């Protein structure tokens, strides 16, 4: 609570911060623990899901539609599945983080109406729990590309970490704004499903960006998730540093999303308990 004297104020900000940190950890753990409660395979499900996507997309796009990906240069990799996963895993993380955040306030309405805590922790904890799964997946993918001979991925690890961080910030910003909007308009949840479906094919995940020309290429360049996918493919598949232009565009989008998300959320936050 706000103290009257400046030192007290500083103390209370510190207290609020440490309190929020513990609560953030607890909310994230709640998400993680409750996700696979009472399921026999438990955590394995979080890996079965992307593996299924991988198999389906590899069969459909790699074999049936015969999408050809170039050999990774300089890594020399030539496996559609690896190319696919490099773009697909960040995308899946992004969508599950945003989808989860959007409903997080409405789902916790009882909590919001009956107790006080910084409300932004709810969408943030959802993103964090999705991030935990994502880190495990990325760890396994890294092992796989190393096993297939892209040793450079090891030196490029800082880029992987940076990319994950940027996607996380981007997803948090969108999650904050959309979760707040969803309190007023429940359409957001439904709209998002369709938007992500379109957005997925506007992102070069199941096809290489080299397939695109002209105006479609320009459209793709406006898509931050395309930058994320291209950068990750560059690092994990090609084994080279990502283009600074794409990295910069992603960073800019992430910062704008975070700023807008926070601004929207702050505006809505004081009235949440009565609007829910």
């Amino acid at each position, binding site marked *: 609570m706000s103290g*009257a004297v400046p030192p007290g104020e500083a103390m209370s900000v510190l207290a609020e911060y440490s309190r929020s940190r513990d609560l953030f950890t607890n909310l994230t753990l*709640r998400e993680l623990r409750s996700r696979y409660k009472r399921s026999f395979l438990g955590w394995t499900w979080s890996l079965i899901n992307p593996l299924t996507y991988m198999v389906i997309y590899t069969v459909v796009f790699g074999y049936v539609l015969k999408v050809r990906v170039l050999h990774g240069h300089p890594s020399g990799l030539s496996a559609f599945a690896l190319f696919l996963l490099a773009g697909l895993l960040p995308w899946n993380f992004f969508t599950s983080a945003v989808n989860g955040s959007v409903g997080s306030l409405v789902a916790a309405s009882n909590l919001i109406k009956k107790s006080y805590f910084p409300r932004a922790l709810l969408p943030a904890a959802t993103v964090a729990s999705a991030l935990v799964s994502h880190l495990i997946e990325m760890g396994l993918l890294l092992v796989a590309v190393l096993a297939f001979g892209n040793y450079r991925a090891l030196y490029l690890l800082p880029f992987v970490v940076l990319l994950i961080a940027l996607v996380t910030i981007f997803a948090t910003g969108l999650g904050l704004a959309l979760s707040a909007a969803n309190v007023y*308009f429940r359409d957001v949840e439904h709209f998002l499903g369709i938007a992500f479906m379109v957005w997925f094919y506007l992102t070069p995940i199941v096809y290489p960006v080299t397939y695109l020309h002209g105006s479609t290429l320009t459209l793709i360049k406006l898509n931050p998730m395309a930058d994320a996918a291209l950068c990750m493919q560059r690092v994990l598949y090609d084994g080279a540093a990502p283009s600074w232009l794409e990295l910069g565009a992603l960073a800019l989008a992430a910062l704008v999303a975070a700023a807008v998300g926070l601004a929207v959320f702050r505006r809505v936050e004081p*009235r949440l308990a009565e609007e829910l």
Partner: protein
Amino acid sequence: MSDLDLVASRTRQPPGTETVIDVRDVSKRFRLLRERNSSLKSTIIRGRRTVAEDFWALRDVSFQVHAGETFGLIGENGSGKSTMLKCMTRILTPDRGSIEVQGKVSALLELGAGFHPELSGRENVFLNGAILGMSQRELERRFDDIVDFAGIGKFIDEPVKNYSSGMYVRLGFSVAINVDPDVLLVDEVLAVGDEQFQRKCNEKVSELRKSGKTIVMVTHSMGSVQALCDRVAWFEHGRLIDVGTPKEITDRYLGGVQVDRHVDDGGKPRWGTAEATVTGVHFVDDGGAECSPRSGAPATLRITYETTEPVERPVFAFVVKDLEGRPITGPNGRDGVCIPDRIDGRGHLDVTFDDFVLLPGTYDVDVAIWDEPMLKVYDYRPELLRVDVAPGPITETTGLVSLRGRWSFG
């Protein structure tokens, strides 16, 4: 509240004058959305504006709560007292004015709010504790106390959805009370669980009072206001009417709690919507003449009434109280299965006792007429009759009533 609370209130330090909660010119507006745009379609069709009507739940409320004080918020439903409490917890944000609270706050608004049904009691204690502002380390230190106090025992590792509602609430209370707050905000939640647990809760609250914590409680119970509170704020229609000692405020409040109150000729308070009114109450003999009842003898209580319009299915009720206002019995027409289909004009109702078991002494009688579900009162006349019960066949002298036991040796 129990005697324990009274003892506690006598032995603890008097509250200080240092302001712990400073409420300044607080107003809170709710939008009553009659046609709320909860989908995009309706927003587009109707334009950006929703059809809203403002409702001021609080208007220009200012007061201070001092350190170590137990402060009551009273008022009718919808008077703004709970809104005030929620503003203090920061769940709601006032539209105008400010509220400053010094120290760590814990609120008992709903016990176990935020428990996740699939998670175990243990996991929920940590989650709920964190929501209430406890650090991980504090929680680890207090964990055993929390579980002990709740009496959950080995069930602590079961998912809480398998808990009985009693266990659920006990665990919720136990976490909340162990936050060790400087300021405790309580919203009529203490009336939970079985009697034994309620006793523990009351003891714990008394303990907090004794140790100099500041407590703000919303309550309907005049008993607990008198027993627990040092000062009371009285709310009506979102405005603060008065702040004062429990005695001052409850006297005024009880006299004026109904919106459509009116005062009868004798200056005694009386309230109700007045479609049907109680015109008198007496004990009568077989000939219908006024008399004093005798302890242990047959007696008849006659309630006379009149109506201004036909009244469907009224419920008559009376309460017999001792001179300190403690109710001894309070039967009504629903208990007695005597609800007339309609009354119109003047009339009377008799309640006959084969054996009037009150011991000799002086008693007060409240009389009221309610609608059938007993939600609306047509007329409530507290202490309309002061009656002396004369000595009779009953020879007992201890207490207020005789249970008319027959004594025998086997």
